[in-house]
Each structure stands twice: as C-alpha cells, then as structure tokens.
C-alpha cells in the first residue's frame, strides 16, 4: 500500500506541464481528521490553469471533505493549499463551488440566485444586470429567469447552480458531485454542456464524482483516492483529445481508460469489504 502511494505521488503535474502553464492549484501534503478518525493524509497534486482533474473514490473516502478543504470551507490539519500564490485558509475570490444538492436559495428566483455570487462579491448593479442574463443564457435557462427552484427539474436547478458559479468569473471551479442528484439522461446532457462551456471559458477545475465514466470523460487526469485514511492511490492521465463529445464515449481508448480506473477502484472496493468483514 505504501509503495503504491509513493509511485502514484511521483507523477503529479505531468499533464499540468502538458497544458503549458504554472499550476493554478497546488495541494501539498494535505491531511484531515475528524476527532480520532483520520479522513485523508498526504494529499499532493497540482491542477493546471486550464485543466480538469477528476477525483474518484468509493463513497465515504473523503472526496467531498477534500474539496471543502480546498475551497477553505472547513479547516484541515496538515499541509497547505495554494490557489495562484494565495494560501487558502477561508474561501477566496476567484474560486467558485458547485454543490451536489444544487445549493440554490429556494426563496430566490433563477435570476436572483445567479446574481447572488456577484452581489456577495460587491459587483456594481450595472454589471450584475449585464452578467446575470448572459450566464442564464449560457447554461440554457433563458425564459426561466423568474422561476423558483421548486418549479424546475433537478437538471435545470443544477444549470442554475452552474450559472451562479460561472457568473463570478472564477478561475477555479470546484465541482462536488454536481450531477449525482439528477437522472441518468439529464446527467449525460449536463456533462456535455459542461464540456462545451469549459471549452468556451477554460478554467482550472476539480471535479469530484463517484462515476468512473464521468471522471474519464471530463478529466485530463483522474485521481483515485484509496484506503483508510485515504490517500492518492493513482493519478491516471486521460490522453483523450479535446474537444470531447459523444464520439469520445465510443473510442476504444475511452473504454481502455475506463477499465483501468475501474479495476483500480474495484481492487480498492474489495479491500474495503475485506476490512469490513474483519
């Protein structure tokens, strides 16, 4: 287990180098406890300026906790997170998060929800009035400006959540299983929508998911979290060309990479079961 971890940890940043710029996010030796429970330890990876890093792992492995630490929402116990040159100790400007259960304010309309981030950032009124419709249109919600969340499907709600995050013009997007709470068809549509939007406005992105397919489809690299406490088990380069479309799903290389991540995770899952049986 230790040997695997060291080999895995030795290759962070290769794809970031390929994307040709300084890393936007640097996670160094991150560790987190909840009381006596150690969630993860020694998490090291970088994310390039225009790179999507997907994080997969079995449920309960601390993916979401890790993402919240990177956002500065919850404190960590060791290591550090740098976004640009800024050390993260609390949520910082230029980083936006998309939440698993959408995190929309149910008493606000689509427009008001999308405006929220801008208002919190202290944007002038004119700018808010200009940007809100622009981003509502970008995510395909034009015509629904005055709708309340309860009047929309899960997929539409998450489009709204995405628009709210994008509206603040972030250079880092943190996605916390954003499509886990929508149905399978909508999920697929949203994945390609996200890819389309990312091609238009590339940012650094960390995409947490428990879907292997989603991780391989979206990520330039896929990080597999493993163990108790969890650590980075493997970082797999996804050398599928961009822009990725529905055709990507049919490529033999896609199937190969998906199998590779799958077998890595299954090995993990069996070990987890073994631990439970003991």
């Amino acid at each position, binding site marked *: 287990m230790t040997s695997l971890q060291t080999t895995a940890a030795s290759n962070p940043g290769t794809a970031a180098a390929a994307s040709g710029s300084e890393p936007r996010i640097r996670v160094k030796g991150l560790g987190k406890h909840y009381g006596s429970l150690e969630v993860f330890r020694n998490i090291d990876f970088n994310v390039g300026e225009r790179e999507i890093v997907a994080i997969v792992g079995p449920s309960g492995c601390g993916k979401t906790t890790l993402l919240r630490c990177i956002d500065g*929402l919850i404190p960590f116990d060791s290591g550090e997170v740098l976004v640009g040159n800024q050390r993260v100790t609390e949520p910082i400007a230029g980083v936006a998060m998309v*939440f698993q*259960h959408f995190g929309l*304010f149910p008493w606000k309309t689509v427009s008001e929800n999308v405006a929220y981030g801008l208002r*919190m950032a202290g944007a002038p009124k004119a700018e808010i009035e200009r940007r809100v419709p622009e981003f509502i249109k970008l995510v395909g919600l034009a015509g*629904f400006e005055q709708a*309340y969340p309860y009047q929309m499907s899960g997929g539409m709600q998450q489009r709204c959540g995405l628009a709210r995050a994008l509206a603040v013009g972030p250079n880092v997007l943190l996605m916390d299983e954003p499509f886990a709470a929508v149905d399978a068809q909508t999920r697929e549509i949203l994945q390609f929508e996200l890819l389309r939007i990312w091609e238009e406005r590339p940012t650094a992105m960390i995409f947490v998911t428990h879907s292997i397919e989603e991780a391989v489809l979206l990520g330039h690299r896929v990080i597999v979290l493993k163990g108790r406490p969890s650590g980075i088990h493997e970082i797999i380069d996804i050398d599928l060309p961009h822009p990725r479309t529905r055709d990507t799903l049919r490529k033999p290389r896609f199937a190969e990479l998906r199998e590779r991540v799958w077998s890595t995770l299954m090995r993990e899952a069996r070990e987890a079961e073994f631990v439970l049986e003991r």
Partner: protein
Amino acid sequence: MPGPGFRAPAFGRPRNDGLCQRGLPHLLTTYLRRHTPFWISILAGIAIWEIAGRSTSAAFMVPFSETVRQLWLFMWSREFIEQFLDSAELFLTGFVLALVVGAPLGLLFARVRALRVGVEPYIMILYATPMVALIPFILSMMGFGFAPKVLVVFLFAVFPVLYNTVEGARSIKPELIEVAKSYRSSEWALWREVMLPYTLPFIMTGVRQSIGRALVGMIAAEFFLSATGLGQLIMGASQNFDTAGVFASIFLIGLIGVGLMRLGLKIEQHFARWRQ
C-alpha cells in the same frame, strides 16, 4: 430544457388554480362546496347561543342578538372607543416589542450555539411559567404605570416568536450556509440573505401563536395592574351586572384575535410561497 408547449412566463406567479377562468357560477359552487360545513357550524353556534341566551336569566347570559346590538351601541360610544384604543396601544406596544426582540434573538440563538445552550434553560422555565403568576411580582417591582403592563403583554407574547424562530433557523440546510460561506458572504449578508428569508415563515407561525397570548396578556394586565381599556370595561360591566356589555367586549376581543390570526396566516403563506 423547456418543452415545446411550455409557458415560461407563468413562473413567478405560482399556484393560481385557475378559478377565474371558469366563470362566476363555477366559482360560487366551488366556494359553497368548500365552505358549507364552515357556515353550517357557524349558524348552528349562533342558534345555540341565541336559544341558550333567551332561556336563561339576563344576569348570567345574553343571546347573540343582544350581544351584537350592544356591540353596535359601543361603536358609537366615545368612552368605549377611548378604552378600545387604550387597549390597542397596550397590545401593539407589547406585541411589536415581542416581535422586535424575539425574532432577532431567535436568529442569534440559532447562530451561536453556546449562547443558546446557556440561555435555553431559563427560556424553558419562563415559557412554562404561567405568566399571570408573575403579575404580583411585576406590580411590586414596577408599580401601576404603562411600562409594567407592556412588560406583561411582552412576556406573554415573546416566547412563541422566540421559540419558533430558533427552531426554524436551526432547520436551515447546512448546505445553504456553506453556499453563503463559499461565496464569501459577510455575517450581516448571511442574516439578511439566508437566515431571515428562510426563517420568516417560522417567525410568522410564532407571531400567530403570540397574537392570542398577547390578547390574554393585555386583559390580564388590565385586570390585575391598573384597570384601563377593555379589561376595565369588562370588569366594570361585570360589577354592574351589565352582562350584555361583558359579552360584547369579550366577543369583540375574540373577533379581533381571529382576524389578526387570519392576517398572520396570510402573511405566513406569502412568505412561504417558495416552500414546496
């Protein structure tokens, strides 16, 4: 994505059940079907009151018709209007104070756990204490002025607001607080944009409960502290065996209470229209 036949502009005006499109006769039958039991019950109540009132001595009870007639006479009596306004002033002062103190304090308790845990036992004790029992104590501390009476109304009314606000604000989904934090909300913006809008329907539930209690507090204060307002009127009428005056005053207080609670319900529904 929007379907082809979707009328997006309908959003923002939720839950109009379309009665207005079907014409007046339909509207009338729908109203009758819904409210028939209500009106039957009201008419039966009035009938029983009328019969009971007519078959007992006027010293004990007056019939409905006599109560309404007395109420009508009151409307034109200067003394009654003055006493009524006196009570209204007491009620509103105590009640608004309860709202202005109860709701923000409730939000604060929900936000600061240590404070809530520290203060909760005292609140529970005070909430459970029959407030009437405190009146002699308040009398000896503060005398007969306006302030001690306001305090009585306040003490009757504040706890439902406080309690419902705390419980409501504590039920905010943690994810929404996280969203606010993630978007770098200030503490004030968190209260204004998240905690208050979420909690408003709960506050209004407390307000509705408080209305009834504040009316009790009002009469109790007027009975046991300096006699003024409707409380004085009821006591005076009672001592003069003016049963119609007693009934009319009590009936009026009941009507006001019901009216205010209905108003509170409407406001609550207005603030809760996003809840599904």
